[in-house]
């Protein structure tokens, strides 16, 4: 957009700390939603928990984080569209919580 072709990509680094809010955690379908959104962006995206840092565009790596409800993750994006990427992913995790119920609004059995 603002960048011209001969310029090197603008080095933007963005980070966000998010918490998994849906009751069932980052299982397969949420992991798929996450990588699908992450893959739309050109920037490199990594996701970390306490121990590991993984590629946010790899479903294998994301699902192997095995993040359960309440887990805190750091999303880090590097590249021209880093800000948009982090915003979109934070929205997915914290606001939409993967279109799934959270413990508080889950029906009591």
């Amino acid at each position, binding site marked *: 957009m603002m960048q011209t072709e001969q310029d090197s990509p603008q080095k933007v680094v963005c980070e966000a700390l998010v918490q998994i809010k849906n009751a069932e955690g980052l299982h397969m*379908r949420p992991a*798929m939603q996450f990588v*699908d959104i992450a893959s739309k962006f050109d920037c490199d995206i990594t996701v970390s928990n306490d121990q590991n840092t993984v590629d946010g565009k790899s479903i294998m790596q994301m699902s*192997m984080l095995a993040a359960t409800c309440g887990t805190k993750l750091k999303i880090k994006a590097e590249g021209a569209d880093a800000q948009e990427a982090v915003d979109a992913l934070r929205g997915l995790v914290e606001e939409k919580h993967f279109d799934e119920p959270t413990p508080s609004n889950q029906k009591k059995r």
Partner: protein
Amino acid sequence: MEIKKGIAVSPGISIAKLLIIDSEDYRIPRRQIEPSQRMMEIQHVRDAFKAAIGELTEFEAAQDDTEGGKIKDIFAVHLRFLHDRSLRKRITDLVYSESVTAEYAVSATMREIASHFAKQKDAYISERAADMYDIERRLLKQLLGGRREDVEHLTEEVAVVARELSPTQTAAFNRKFVKGLATDAGGRTSHTAIVARSLGIPAVVALEDLTECVSGGDTVIIDGNRGIVIVNPDEQTIQQYEEYSQEFAQLEHKLDAIREKPAVTRDGVKITLLGNIEFPDEAEMVLQKGGEGIGLYRTEFLYLNRESEPTEQEHYEAYAETIGVFKHRPVIIRTVDLGADKYTQSKRFAPEPNPFLGLRSIRFCLQNLTMFKRQMHAILRASVLGDVKIMFPLISNLQEMKQATMILRDVMDDLNEESVKYNKDVEVGIMVETPSAALTASTLARDADFLSIGTNDLIQYTLAVDRGNELVSTLYSAADPAVLRLIRTVIQDAHKAQIDVSVCGEMASEPEYIMLLLGMGIRTISLTPPMIPEIKQIIRSVTVQDCNNLARTILGMNSERQISNYLRDAARKILPEAF
């Protein structure tokens, strides 16, 4: 050099490079490859991913969005994994760094990821291990499918090594190049054994973990006489075996010389020797070996290794080809015996928990009338070409026999209406393969033109032993007193009803049982073609008087071991070279 001991099921010696057929149903063993082969294996991995993606994309598209699209979601997730470059890289890196096969790298990697999931405390996440196994199987199916095609398009001689071989696999072999078979599982009468004997190639089964001890391209010696397989033999061993192999060939040659001589005992009793065949091109071998007709023409091959059912014309052409070889000598066509095999089970909507006691053989036919009638239509049409007889397998009660015969009459009516010629007096017989049929043979014999004792199933059902299970296969024996008493009953009942009775099981091709069968009153034997000369040699060396005495002694014995030792000693005196 590694020597493995198994059960010899088909005689001969083969020295060849091996070709392994793995199965996605079993753990894939770790197998090394040459560093120079690594790029090819990596390409195999890539191709498998590509093919699996193609297959899954089709599946996904075919799913509708019912049930909240959950099934569609599962496929979508699996597709993301297959598209995940870091997953593919993890697998190809393993192939490269450790020089292992594509199958092993896929299996090891997917299982590692699965166990990572399985370790998680959260039940929802730990269950994802199942998805990883599913992806593993999908990739392996592609990889192994490719290898199976290799067996169909061989260009050099190989010995095939597998956990076990299914009829579908053996039917697809390029038989010109397969020189020997060796399997982990199986017993004397497993499918591998039957196929090897009919092809006249050596085979050893029940080797337990052979597939885990070999790599593609290893040389193996398969010693089908002694039940030994030697992996990567040294020079000296190869030389010894080459000499031994020549001696064995000479013995075979000597036996071939009696081909033209009649199968008559020393006291002048004529015995009819027929061949068991599976493929039309085996018919020639029966003649070459001195067989006088076909006593068991298995027709399952028409159904295996293909997607759709054979047409009536395809049935007819196969039968016509075989009958053409025998002109006016008998050809007994057995109606299709499908059901308990892996092929039919895998096509079934829900596999049967106990297929050998399930919807198999004649039962399967009686519930699939269109298929059954189509085959009988073709057999009847071919009946004018020679001396054709029809045989129903696995009849276990009178009702089944009457039903099958009634359907045959229906098909005859159809042919009458179509004005198609057929032999109206075609003989119809049954196989006696269950204890229930053996015990009611006197009743069944009233409606049958002949009885043929199928000893393989009869032994399995009488002794309650799975002949393919190496843990109990030693209990499986034709020399068991229970089996012998049933056989004697069937023979006596057939004689009383004045109809023909023959033996067509594996028992009939084992030299040690021939005297006993003659002594019990058998005069027609149908067996695997390569064994005909040896059995004829035995027949020509004995008198019926001796056989009767032997049978009387045997039937007074109460233990399997005592009987089999006695039989072996008796046979050794007659044909020492074979033992």
